[in-house]
């Protein structure tokens, strides 16, 4: 224990020891209580309290990892390789902070949109699903056990399907069903991979698995497991050819679900993929030599270009942003595939940055949706004049999405470009720039429509949303610029997380106590 921690009273000290369990158990218990409530407002309030508590726990854990390295928690008192272990290093804590901070920012925004979009008798169920989803996402990020990760993957996915199905109209049901099929296939492939690994190594504990994989030769079941897990998680990530479920799921789900999922859900799956590729397979396979990396580069490039092009042709802002999400995921996976520190840092810092900017953009779009009833391009004509704050924030977040210097988007792309030069693939740096220009096209199109056309119909009467919705947007947009100029906090933490992944690829993570 560090000096700062040991000065606290024993009761608090005891609590700090149990933070990894509380991080997951509090939202789960909260979900059960919220499901029993009949009052939607009370359900929101309880969810808000829990969501505000989560970043505090996550930041404490991050601090602990800075001081002590790895935090290990034996669930149920069963010692690690046998029992379920919650194993937190800087990388886990980093993802925990992203998810919990986005949850805390989304909840104040949620009250008005949920009250508008979801029937009174379903509201507490909706918040219950949200808390379960939060529990699942935090669980995936915190656990050090492959099967436990699968369980949390299912917890988050099942609650996500329910949230999407509660969307505004019947198309939400189809979108949820589509995601259900794809998500189930993804989870199945993942668990097949884990099963193969279990047969070959006899363990489910990540750290133990990494050690034992090194001992057996590069056998075929091990490689098959890697491909099963990669494809299964890629479905969850919505990596380019497996992204079909994402645009509909984001476009037709309730606004709050879109905001929360767009900024957290795919990120957690990306974390799990990095954990497998670097920490578990890293020590035994030569990362850079594997053909998987080449495949990742190709798919990332395809995502960056094809999905960006697709975004340019959407007639609905939410679908456009959804396609842009697929493109942004391409940047993150590109960063991972470099397998050097700067590249991984770029990918990881883009996890945060993309959460900030997509969160802000979807929040602005949600506000327009609230005033106009839909966000088709004709509907938002001239909206820049009647909803100046919302549209102003949209443009600011859009600039960040493009990657204008001074915004967070630039920071991520800077790291990615550096990594491209570092690994001698300078053409990739130009590809990153070129795909950014496509973002100029689709964001610019919205700017043109919103500012240079006359408002008509509902757009004439529209006005900015109430402060409870504006404030979270402002926080996110300010974050987009603050961390774009003062990148120390996010980029340094991402660098430490990248270090943690890379050093775990050398086999240092697998020290089982």
């Amino acid at each position: 224990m560090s000096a700062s921690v040991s000065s606290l009273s024993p009761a608090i000290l005891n609590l700090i020891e149990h933070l990894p369990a509380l991080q997951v158990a509090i939202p789960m218990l909260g979900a059960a209580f919220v499901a029993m409530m009949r009052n939607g407002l009370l359900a929101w309030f309880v969810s808000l309290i829990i969501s505000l508590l989560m970043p505090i726990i996550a930041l404490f854990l991050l601090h602990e990892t800075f001081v002590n390295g790895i935090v290990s928690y034996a669930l149920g008192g069963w010692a690690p390789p046998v029992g379920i272990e919650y194993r937190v290093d800087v990388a886990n804590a980093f993802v925990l902070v992203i998810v919990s901070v986005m949850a805390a920012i989304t909840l104040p925004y949620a009250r008005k949109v949920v009250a508008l979009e979801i029937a009174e008798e379903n509201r507490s169920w909706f918040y219950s699903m949200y808390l379960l989803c939060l529990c699942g996402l935090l669980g995936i990020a915190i656990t050090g056990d492959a099967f436990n990760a699968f369980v949390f993957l299912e917890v988050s996915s099942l609650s996500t399907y329910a949230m999407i199905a509660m969307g505004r109209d019947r198309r939400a049901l189809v979108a949820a069903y589509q995601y259900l099929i794809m998500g189930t296939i993804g989870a199945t492939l993942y668990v097949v991979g884990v099963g193969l690994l279990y047969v070959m190594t006899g363990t489910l504990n990540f750290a133990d698995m990494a050690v034992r994989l090194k001992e057996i030769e590069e056998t075929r079941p091990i490689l098959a497991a890697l491909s099963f897990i990669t494809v299964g998680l890629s479905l969850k990530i919505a990596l380019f050819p497996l992204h079909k479920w994402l645009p509909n799921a984001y476009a037709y789900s309730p606004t709050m679900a879109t905001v929360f999922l767009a900024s957290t859900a795919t990120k957690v799956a990306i974390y799990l993929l990095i954990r497998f590729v670097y920490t578990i397979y890293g020590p035994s396979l030569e990362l850079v030599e594997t053909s998987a990396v080449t495949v990742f580069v190709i798919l990332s490039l395809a995502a960056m270009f094809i999905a960006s092009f697709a975004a340019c042709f959407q007639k609905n802002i939410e679908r456009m942003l959804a396609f842009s999400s697929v493109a942004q995921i391409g940047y993150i996976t590109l960063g991972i595939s470099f397998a050097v520190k700067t590249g991984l840092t770029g990918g990881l810092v883009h996890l945060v940055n993309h959460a900030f900017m997509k969160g802000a953009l979807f929040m602005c779009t949600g506000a327009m949706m609230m005033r106009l009833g839909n966000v088709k391009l004709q509907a938002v004509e001239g909206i820049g004049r009647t909803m100046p704050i919302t549209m102003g924030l949209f443009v600011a977040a859009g600039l960040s999405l493009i990657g204008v210097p001074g915004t967070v988007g630039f920071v991520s792309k800077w790291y990615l470009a550096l990594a491209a030069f570092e690994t001698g693939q300078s053409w990739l740096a130009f590809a990153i720039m070129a795909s950014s220009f496509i973002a100029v096209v689709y964001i610019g199109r919205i700017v043109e429509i919103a500012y240079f056309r006359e408002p008509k119909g509902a757009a004439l009467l529209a006005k900015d949303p109430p402060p409870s919705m504006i404030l979270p947007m402002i926080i996110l947009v300010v974050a987009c610029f603050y961390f774009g100029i003062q990148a120390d906090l996010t980029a340094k933490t991402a660098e430490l997380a990248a270090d943690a992944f890379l050093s775990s690829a050398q086999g240092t993570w697998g020290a089982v106590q």
Partner: protein
Amino acid sequence: MRLDAILRIVTKMLIPFMLIFALYVHFHGDFSPGGGFQAGVVIAAAVVFHALVFGLYPTQKIVPPRLVTLMMPAGVIIYAGVGFLTLYLGENFLDYDVLSHNHHPEKPNYHAQERGVLWVEVGVLTTVAGTMISIFYAFAGRGKGEDKTK
């Protein structure tokens, strides 16, 4: 169905045994196949059986939909509650050892383990039974006016 005395009487006689069998499956889960999940399904099957013979509405008078929807989260609360209890008593989340009256940190305590897992399984039983019955209500109540499961 109303005139079929044999079916009705046999059903009434069987249902108590089904419920007791569910409890047997639950409590004997430590030594033989079974446990909370299976017991919950057996309980739900008893309710479904009643509904098949007597009709949906008489069953919903005995097991109201509101109770069923409360059972689903209540089970989770029981399960997580055991976890929080062990935390409160000063051990790791879900470390059952501490549930014993004479807990000793060094020695494993089989009685406490059994007690802990029994309560956790009560939670599982509650949630599973609630979910099964509410799925049945949702399907059986379809097309009969308002959705009573909400």
